[in-house]
């Protein structure tokens, strides 16, 4: 018996008190919706006044539901409905204002009403007439789904809570939910495994690896140099003393940079079951991009469960041969699921003192205005084979860690900018100046018909003479992309990368 399962067994033997469901109720009544949450004095004054800005009718209703929850007083169904009504009112306000102008009070209402709804769902048992010594059954799948989506929607719609106590409470709630999920899994193994095995949706299939890719692989013509390892000082020198002053620091692959990450070892992200367990049975909500690439017609974003994303886009066997249509891209998954953050480490290189954008970058002035980051910005990039990030530049130096699978990356130096046809201001005033109008896939002959390829070359004649370097970034490697370098990225298999932006 592994240490982990011993611990679980002990918990179960300890009886009702230590059950995760009871811990969850405690979290709700003492951390998320504690009795003095909206009291007039002390640290809660700020929270109270920010909610009163929604108007007294709304604040009073919120308090009534909160009282009802604390005392299990009133109709459970009605109070739950009022939570939904308050969430709806806040949500309606999000759309009534341009996003940047949404008054903070509606964000706060959305969070508070979501915490109340979550706590209502988690404490439903307390409303029931006591049934003596009946064993407490695990939370149902539906309730688990709704619990997770309620909190995740609040996080996605309003961002991380500004007060750290609420943030800690939410993390604690998710951690407790994960234990509830493990309890359900064990319960199922013991009792209803037959029923679940008949389930054709594949909900209980164990996936220990991602499907193999048969994706087309571009030939690399101007390969980016690789080193096995490089010291902090050497790396800094690489950036600050470039071989060519006209070019500035150049891209570099560091092969051994992430070898010691738990995500590459004992907590392997290459194991789909591990990722599903980290996301509470795949219930966590994630924002994904749908459509071929963000510059294409029909591109969109939606929020879906991690489980649905995996089954609909990642675990397809055999994988579809066309370009991918679902991509968990540029999402700070590690703020959302802090325990995944423990599976990786910020490479030391991100704490070097990198040079400003090279003078040949057309966006040098714009990028130079950005404030110095205290810590690197982390983003997860998880998708099937055939995801595309169209040619673009970022305002930071980037260390791209390839945790699972492989990607084709093509890079153009800032001085090639003139040949890369940057887009400009587009409909709705969105500045697309960091994105090229080029479809590298078509121009390089990877995608499209011969006709489309010829048409693209005719339309963008300078592209042919633009100099680039490229690589197939293999699993376990890290790629340094200097600030201002244009990059086109294409996954060649199921791929999970983490980018670290620094300046």
């Amino acid at each position, binding site marked *: 018996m592994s240490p982990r399962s011993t611990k679980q067994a002990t918990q179960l033997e300890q009886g009702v008190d230590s059950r995760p469901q009871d811990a969850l109720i405690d979290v709700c009544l003492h951390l998320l919706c504690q009795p003095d949450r909206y009291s007039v004095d002390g640290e809660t004054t700020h929270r109270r006044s920010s909610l009163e800005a929604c108007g007294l009718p709304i604040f009073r209703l919120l308090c*009534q539901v909160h009282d009802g929850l604390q005392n299990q007083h009133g109709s459970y169904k*009605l109070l739950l409905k*009022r939570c939904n009504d308050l969430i709806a009112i806040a949500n309606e306000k999000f759309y009534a*204002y341009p996003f940047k102008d949404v008054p903070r009070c509606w964000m706060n209402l959305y969070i508070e009403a979501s915490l109340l709804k979550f706590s209502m769902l988690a404490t439903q048992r307390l409303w029931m007439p006591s049934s003596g010594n009946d064993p407490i059954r695990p939370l149902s799948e539906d309730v688990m789904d709704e619990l997770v989506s309620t909190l995740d929607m609040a996080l996605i719609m309003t961002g991380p809570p500004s007060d750290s106590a609420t943030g800690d409470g939410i993390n604690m709630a998710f951690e407790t939910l994960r234990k509830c999920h493990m309890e359900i899994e064990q319960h199922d193994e013991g009792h209803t495994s037959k029923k679940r095995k008949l389930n054709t949706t594949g909900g209980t299939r164990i996936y220990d690896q991602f499907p193999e890719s048969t994706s087309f692989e571009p030939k690399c013509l101007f390969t980016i140099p690789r080193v096995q390892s490089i010291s902090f000082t050497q790396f800094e020198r690489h950036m600050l003393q470039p071989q060519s002053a006209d070019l500035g620091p150049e891209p570099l692959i560091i092969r051994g940079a992430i070898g010691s990450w738990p995500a590459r070892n004992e907590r392997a992200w290459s194991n789909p079951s591990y990722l599903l367990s980290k996301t509470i049975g795949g219930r966590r909500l994630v924002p994904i991009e749908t459509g071929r690439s963000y510059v294409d017609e029909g591109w969109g974003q939606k929020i879906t469960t991690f489980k649905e994303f995996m089954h609909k886009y990642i675990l397809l066997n055999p994988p579809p041969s066309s370009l991918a249509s679902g991509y968990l891209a540029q999402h700070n998954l590690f703020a959302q699921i802090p325990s995944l953050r423990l599976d990786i480490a910020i490479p030391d290189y991100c704490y070097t003192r990198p040079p400003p954008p090279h003078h040949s970058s057309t966006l040098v002035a714009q990028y130079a205005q950005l404030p110095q980051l205290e810590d690197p910005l982390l983003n997860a990039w998880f998708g099937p084979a055939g995801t595309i990030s169209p040619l673009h530049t970022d305002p930071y130096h980037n260390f791209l860690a390839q945790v699972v699978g492989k990607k084709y990356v093509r890079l153009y130096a800032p001085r090639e900018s003139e040949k890369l046809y940057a887009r400009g201001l587009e409909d709705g005033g969105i500045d697309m100046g960091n994105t090229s109008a080029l479809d590298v896939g078509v121009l390089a002959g990877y995608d499209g018909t011969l006709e489309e390829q010829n048409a693209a070359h005719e339309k963008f004649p300078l592209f042919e003479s633009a100099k680039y370097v490229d690589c197939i970034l293999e699993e376990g490697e890290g790629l340094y992309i200097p600030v201002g370098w244009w990059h086109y990225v294409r996954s060649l298999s199921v791929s999970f990368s983490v980018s670290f932006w620094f300046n």
Partner: protein
Amino acid sequence: MELWAAGFNAWGQLEFEKPEVSSSVSDDLGQFTCIMRDGKICVLKSTFSTTIVGISDRTRAAGSPDDILTNLTEQGKLKSSAIAGNDKICQLKGNAVIQYSSAEDYRKGIYETLEDIGAVIQLEAGQTGFTALTTTGKVYSWGDERYGQCLGREIDEDLPASKPCIVEDLADLPNRIIKISSSGYVTAALTSANDAYFWGRGEDPKDLISAFPTPLDLDGQDILDVAVGFNHIVVLTTERKVFIVGDNGNGQLGLAIEKSDDWREAPLPLSNGQRVSGIYAGYKNTFVLVEDEMA
């Protein structure tokens, strides 16, 4: 006269007999219920938390008004003001329309006077914009450009979204517009020939609403009154039948369903000799005025 209602009642806005300070949360009315009797009743305003009606000799309020609504009531400016979902407030001031850009500006008394569109007899607000009906039967609209469909008109440099501009499609009708109604992302106009036109953002109810005024065809029936709620619409035919469509999450349709994408007749268990004389749609609730046929 009787006032019947169904739908959202979180603040007791459908309970005129409820004490103002009550500790219990009110439930919604899932079916149409008589909530008030008086010699004369008209609904003056219904917001997300309050209903204010005028009866024979005074006004009465149910639910929980916020400070802005209380202030408007005290000043007798309920009917001449419209509050949009984005907090902007428009108000008739003499022959002009003035606009406060937020509730905060309203409290401070900071407003701008909008372009002259002639004397206005009705002013309505949706979630992100306003609609005005003039004494000459012309309809003007203005609001957030992001929801241009809600304006029912072209938007360009000469006809900016933010300024009152005429709803062209309604200007050339053979019959004049006598009433408008707006809420959420939908607006309606009623003509003197008993036709109803709708425009807005056609999310819910689906397929009924487009970006330019479109006449409603309810099996050829003549329309006597229209009322637009947050995500539902109510019409009264000259045959005194009430038809409803849209969201029913709070029972605003008076039906035991989640929502209705098709027009349905509202279930109103009226007594013999009673008929519907008017309709009004609140945030997520519906009001029906019932009179004795002999009256």
